[in-house]
């Protein structure tokens, strides 16, 4: 059953068509990779889904309910969470307080929010830093914090925008394990935008490829990596 349905979504910026009638589905419990060269329109599509941009055409459904053009906070409350490519933490708040902002979506109780936030911080492996200011964390830790904070809203689905960019090899490895664990243990569906091809391919159940705003391929990582259009998009003409 499809959890997220993108239907002919178009987004223009002036004369530039950033997303050109993009359609695909994400099934419940899937990890779907969204890839494409720079400027392919991946982040634009993310921003359309999460409510930061209003699409110029097309419709978006989550759990069968239309969410096109809703405010970001409304979409978050519908249990569709997102992380940002450029980390947007709350620097002067502690790690725990950062995650509490997410946890407050379901409760007004400080104790309740603190308990839930603490559990998610432990889950992403940041317990040792729980009292640190978010600004004191390394980039990788800030990314885990961003993830914990979004998980604290209790999402059914996560949109992850380039969580692996800028990480070292070993950090990338543990990130991939964590993303798998989130899906396998918590049953959270994941749509992930990524540049690092050799990471996204083994991680994803399915891959959607964008180029110049258009969807050029969709399928298992194997199928997609053999697709001549995809090879052309990434490597150029022969």
């Amino acid at each position, binding site marked *: 059953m499809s959890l997220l349905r993108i239907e002919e979504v178009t987004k223009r910026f002036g004369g530039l068509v950033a997303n050109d009638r993009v359609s695909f589905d994400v099934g419940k419990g899937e990890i779907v990779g969204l890839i494409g060269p720079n400027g392919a329109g991946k982040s634009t599509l993310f921003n359309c889904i999460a409510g930061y941009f209003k699409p110029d055409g097309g419709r978006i459904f989550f759990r069968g309910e239309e969410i096109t053009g809703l405010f970001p*906070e409304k979409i978050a409350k519908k249990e569709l969470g997102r992380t*940002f490519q450029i980390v947007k*933490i709350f*620097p002067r708040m502690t790690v725990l307080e950062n995650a509490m902002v997410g946890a407050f979506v379901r*409760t007004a109780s400080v104790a309740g929010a603190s308990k839930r936030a603490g559990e998610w911080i432990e889950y992403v492996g940041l317990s040792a830093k729980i009292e640190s200011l978010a600004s004191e964390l390394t980039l990788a830790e800030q990314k885990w914090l961003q993830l914990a904070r*979004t998980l604290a809203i209790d999402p059914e689905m996560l949109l992850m925008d380039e969580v692996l960019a800028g990480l070292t090899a070993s950090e990338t490895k543990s990130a991939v394990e964590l993303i798998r664990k989130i899906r396998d243990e918590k049953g959270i569906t994941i749509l992930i935008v990524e540049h690092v091809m050799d990471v996204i391919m083994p991680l994803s159940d399915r891959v959607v490829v964008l180029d110049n705003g258009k969807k050029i391929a969709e399928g298992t990582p194997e199928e997609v990596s053999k697709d001549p259009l995809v090879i052309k998009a990434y490597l150029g003409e022969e």
Partner: protein
Amino acid sequence: MAVKDLFMVRKTDYAPVRMAVIIGLVFLVLFVPVIFKKPFPQDLVIKIFLFALLGNAWNILGGLTGQVSLGHAMFFGTGAYTSTLLFLKFGVSPWFGLLTGAMLAGGISLVLGYPSFKLKGHYFAMITIAFGEVFHILFRNIDAFGGASGLFLPITDNSFSAFYFGIHKAPYLYIVFFFYILSTVTIYLLDRSKIGFYLRSINAEEDAARSLGVSSPFYKSIAMFFSASFTAVGGSFYAQYVTFIDPPSVFHLMFSIQIVLIVILGGIGSIVGPLAGALVLIPLSEFTRIYLGGTGRGFDLILYGLLIIVFAVYQPLGLVGMFGRKRR
């Protein structure tokens, strides 16, 4: 869910030093009229707490939420005019007028906040200046509200219920101190509740806050409501204390800016910042006025400006920041 679950308690909250300072401050203020018998120092302390109250009110929106308003005089004036007009035209008790003014200013802030919150940063500050000036001009030209000549409150019997004590300053001091404490407690509780977390997250990264389900227009409106209401309380108090109001004294842009300067000097977003700022700037402006008289008109503002420049460069966290204890 118990009420206490709604607020976070920090380890430092019950620190003995902090409690001692608070209790000390309360006693100090209670004994001001006993120690200083002359009206001038009493008047000075009243003004300090009035501006500390206004600074607190501004801080809810500016410090906690990060929305810099340069038009808070419109709420101050709304409070001052509401209680005064209700009393003059209908004989309504100034206490009731104060409450009405606070609610009215809160209501106005919601109406004006709705379009203003679509603007960010400097643009928000600019639209608040514009609204503030509209109020200033309107009140100068509406004769039913006293026009440019302003409104006098008549002398009545000295009594608490009339909110009038003639030449006695002690009751005014206790009243303004009470409102200052009320605003401080309100900020303290807001800061430690879900609302406070949401306001601080909007301040830090609005886009990220929204991705976590924080409805930023709604929570900014809450902050604006509290901010405007407390400012209006200060306005009603001012009208009762001075017994004369006119548009330049309560609606002037300089007045809005003075509130902001006090908070910036004291420490933006800090709970004791506004009081610290008022303790320095109010005596400064009173003394320059006394010693320089008419020739020194505006000199206090030059000094203000100089202080702000020095602080912006060397101590952006304000006076409070100088004492090492960084606010989380």
